[in-house]
């Protein structure tokens, strides 16, 4: 019985029915087979035996009938001997005989009742020959009936005898067939009794069915009954004891399920209570929020996905003039002026797309809204998307910006006015700037002239010395010559006088030459510079030599102080540039060093280093003077900037230098200085000045 516990519930229920079905099928098959067999047997009988027997008796009767006819015919022929009439009637009888014979023989042919075939065949032959004999006798009787009555009668008697024989034969035949029939029916009866095996099997199966049905029904009914009880009590809301353990796996599962169900019902009750509590909390929170919304001064509107208003707080009421109750469920376009409604729809789509992924909020640009009164007013809205469990709503927080708009308008107006004023002022300033620039240009020119003037002054001063010496020397020579001449004249000239004269003369001449050379040098260098300053053509020149010459020309200024000026670096460099500006630059730098760096006082050192790299030439000018404070370095190139204003500094020197380097020489200048250590200028410009 343990085996049964392992069957699934379904199969348990199905066992009995299945067995029953098998049984039924079995019975059906066997009974079907039996019936078929009997059917076959009976069919055979009905097909051949019965019809044959019928035929036999029928033929016999018909033959008898014809014989009677024949007798009657002959009797009547005795009275009226009409050959023709006899033949006519006799013909009928003969025809019938022929037919009877024909039909009978056909039925015999059809018959396949088997049996003893040789016996059967002989029997058939006998019958056939009997028929022929009978026919011949009948023909004879008919023929003779109109000729010889006695003979005819004899023939008739003969026919009768033959008929008797024939009948006897037919009887035998029919009894054979009847025997066959009876034996067949006996067979049937026997076969019905031969089903022992089937009976045993049937009994076994039925008992199996009964046992299984009883067992399962008892077991299952019990367990299911208990389950039913439990469920009923649960449905009434009562608690149940948990169902007992079962050996049966399936029933155990069912019991577990019911227990579990009971538990979940408990759980449900508990959850229902919890839910009630939560709902209460929620209702409170809703009330709170509603109150908050109404308190706030900002107008807040919420719309659902079909643009219908689901929230409209007190502030919104006041702003738009609509009543909350009336406006709920209306389309938000109620609050938008007609002309903007289409645009609003476009914006809605845009908002949808833009905020789909994230809950962004959108601050709108100023829009126009519509009050209930029909008045249009400007607003700004902040729209944010709120995805709830059941729907998506958009909350719009609206500020009435009418005041702001007004203020903005005023501001704009003032702005415009201001701009106008500014323009005017700018124009005036530009004119002044133009004037100033012109003045500046003049100043620069005048500075150049001043420089030139100073230069000329310097040269003149310088020239004065050697020329003075020359004059002195020349005068002395003149004196000596006169003296000698006097001596000669007085013929008191001695060789000693002459020799001493020659010495004196040569020394004096030397002194003249030297000084005249000096003067000539000075003048040539001045010429160069002067030409350069006044001419505007760039030319090729050796930078080192040129700078040296410039330094030389500045000797009148520098020799006062024992400043040392050295020109070092690349001696072979040839540049193609405006030499004039270089002169001015060097001059200014040197003068500045003397005036500012060395403060017209100490003995300083100036080094001018020439370097060239690729197409750029760099002049490093450094002095070891007092330096320039960092705060002022940026100012030195400014026009009119000077620290010696009171002492005649115009403040244009470095400005000029800067301009010359940048515009004339197409280069740049930078300054580096440390207070107490010195000042260093780095001047760069292209080796070859490009045209244009």
């Amino acid at each position: 019985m343990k085996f049964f516990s392992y069957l699934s519930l379904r199969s348990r229920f199905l066992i009995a029915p299945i067995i029953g079905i098998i049984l039924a099928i079995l019975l059906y098959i066997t009974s079907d087979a039996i019936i078929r067999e009997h059917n076959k047997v009976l069919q055979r009988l009905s097909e051949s035996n019965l019809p044959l027997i019928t035929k036999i008796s029928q033929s016999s009767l018909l033959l008898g009938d014809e014989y009677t006819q024949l007798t009657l015919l002959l009797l009547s022929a005795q009275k009226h001997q009409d050959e023709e009439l006899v033949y006519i009637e006799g013909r009928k009888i003969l025809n019938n005989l022929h037919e009877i014979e024909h039909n009978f023989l056909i039925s015999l042919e059809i018959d396949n009742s088997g049996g003893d075939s040789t016996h059967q065949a002989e029997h058939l032959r006998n019958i056939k020959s009997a028929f022929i004999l009978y026919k011949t006798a009948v023909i004879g009787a008919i023929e003779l009936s109109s000729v010889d009555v006695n003979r005819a009668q004899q023939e008739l008697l003969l026919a009768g005898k033959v008929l008797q024989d024939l009948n006897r034969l037919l009887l035998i035949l029919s009894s054979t067939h009847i025997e066959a029939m009876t034996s067949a029916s006996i067979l049937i009866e026997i076969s019905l009794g031969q089903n022992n095996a089937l009976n045993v099997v049937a009994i076994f199966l039925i008992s199996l069915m009964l046992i299984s049905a009883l067992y399962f029904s008892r077991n299952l009914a019990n367990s299911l009954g208990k389950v039913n009880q439990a469920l009923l009590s649960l449905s009434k809301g009562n608690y149940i004891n948990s169902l007992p353990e079962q050996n049966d796996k399936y029933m155990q599962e069912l019991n577990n399920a019911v227990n579990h169900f009971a538990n979940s019902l408990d759980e449900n009750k508990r959850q229902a209570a919890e839910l009630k509590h939560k709902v209460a909390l929620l209702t409170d929170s809703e009330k709170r929020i509603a109150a908050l919304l109404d308190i706030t001064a900002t107008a807040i509107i919420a719309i659902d996905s079909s643009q219908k208003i689901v929230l409209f707080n007190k502030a919104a009421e006041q702003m738009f003039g609509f009543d909350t109750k009336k406006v709920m469920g209306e389309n938000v376009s109620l609050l938008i002026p007609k002309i903007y409604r289409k645009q609003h729809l476009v914006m809605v789509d845009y908002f949808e797309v833009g905020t789909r992924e994230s809950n962004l909020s959108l601050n709108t640009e100023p829009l126009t809204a519509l009050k209930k009164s029909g008045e249009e007013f400007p607003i700004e809205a902040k729209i944010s998307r709120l995805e709830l469990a059941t729907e998506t709503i958009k909350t719009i927080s609206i500020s009435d910006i009418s005041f702001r708009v007004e203020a903005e308008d005023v501001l704009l107006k003032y702005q415009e006015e201001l701009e106008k004023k500014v323009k005017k002022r700018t124009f005036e300033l530009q004119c002044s700037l133009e004037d100033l620039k012109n003045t500046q240009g003049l100043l620069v020119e005048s500075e150049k002239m001043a420089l030139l003037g100073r230069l000329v002054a310097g040269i003149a001063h310088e020239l004065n010395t050697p020329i003075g010496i020359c004059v002195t020397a020349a005068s002395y020579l003149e004196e000596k010559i006169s003296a000698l001449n006097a001596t000669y004249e007085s013929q008191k000239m001695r060789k000693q006088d002459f020799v001493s004269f020659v010495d004196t003369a040569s020394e004096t001449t030397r002194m003249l030459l030297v000084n005249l050379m000096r003067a000539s040098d000075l003048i040539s260098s001045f010429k160069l510079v002067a030409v350069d300053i006044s001419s505007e053509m760039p030319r090729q020149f050796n930078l080192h030599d040129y700078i040296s010459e410039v330094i030389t020309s500045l000797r009148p200024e520098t020799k006062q102080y024992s400043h040392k000026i050295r020109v070092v670096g690349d001696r072979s460099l040839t540049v193609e540039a405006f030499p004039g500006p270089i002169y001015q630059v060097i001059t200014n730098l040197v003068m500045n060093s003397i005036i500012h760096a060395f403060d017209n006082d100490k003995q300083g050192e100036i080094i001018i280093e020439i370097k060239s790299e690729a197409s750029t030439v760099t002049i490093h000018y450094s002095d070891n003077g007092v330096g320039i404070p960092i705060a002022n370095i940026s100012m030195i190139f400014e026009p009119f900037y000077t620290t010696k204003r009171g002492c005649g500094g115009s403040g244009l020197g470095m400005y000029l230098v800067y301009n010359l380097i940048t515009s004339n020489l197409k280069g740049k200048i930078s300054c580096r200085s440390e207070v107490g250590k010195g000042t260093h200028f780095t001047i760069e410009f292209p080796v070859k000045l490009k045209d244009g």
Partner: protein
Amino acid sequence: MRFNLSSLILSIAVIIAHASLTNSTTEAGQLNSAQQAKITETQFNLSTIELINGLQTGGYIIYMRHGMTNHEQKDNTQDFNDCTQQRNLSNSGREQLEIIAKAIRVLKIPIGDVLSSPYCRAKHTADITFGKFTVEPKLQFSISKNQEESQRLGEQLKQMMHQASTEKYNAVFVGHTSNLRDGLGIWPKPEGVIVVFQKQQGKLLFLGMIKPSEWPN
């Protein structure tokens, strides 16, 4: 309900049809013989002299029943060549036939083709009467045949008579009673009788019979 009613009507209809059919066939059978009777009842029943005159001119058809037979004998066989098992001519029959033969010769009745039934008695009859014959199996005695066969033999006799050449001569058929009865509805009586027919417009006209005793001496 509907099913029952329709089946009833159907069965009634079947019964009526069957009945009428069977009736018609029998009627047809009867009509056939009646029609035949009509044709042959154009009997002229000419006198012997007239018949003989006609025969002398030729162009007629003669059907002759075999001569008188010995009724103690019986036809026992289907073998037509075995005369011993057949009913044959009696002596008186033979004598009778000789007389007829003589008469035919004397009267100069032109005789054409002579066809005879295969039975011995017919052959002998033909031999004695006309001196010549050809056996024609279709002329055999139809009495022992079934209805179908006997009717067919009758028809065949009729056809043969239609097809017989009767230019200048008379066509002769020597046979039995039932064949003529079945084919043309005439019963030749007695034994040895000559039945005369004339073909006219596709019909066979029965002119008359010449009994053996009627032949002039």
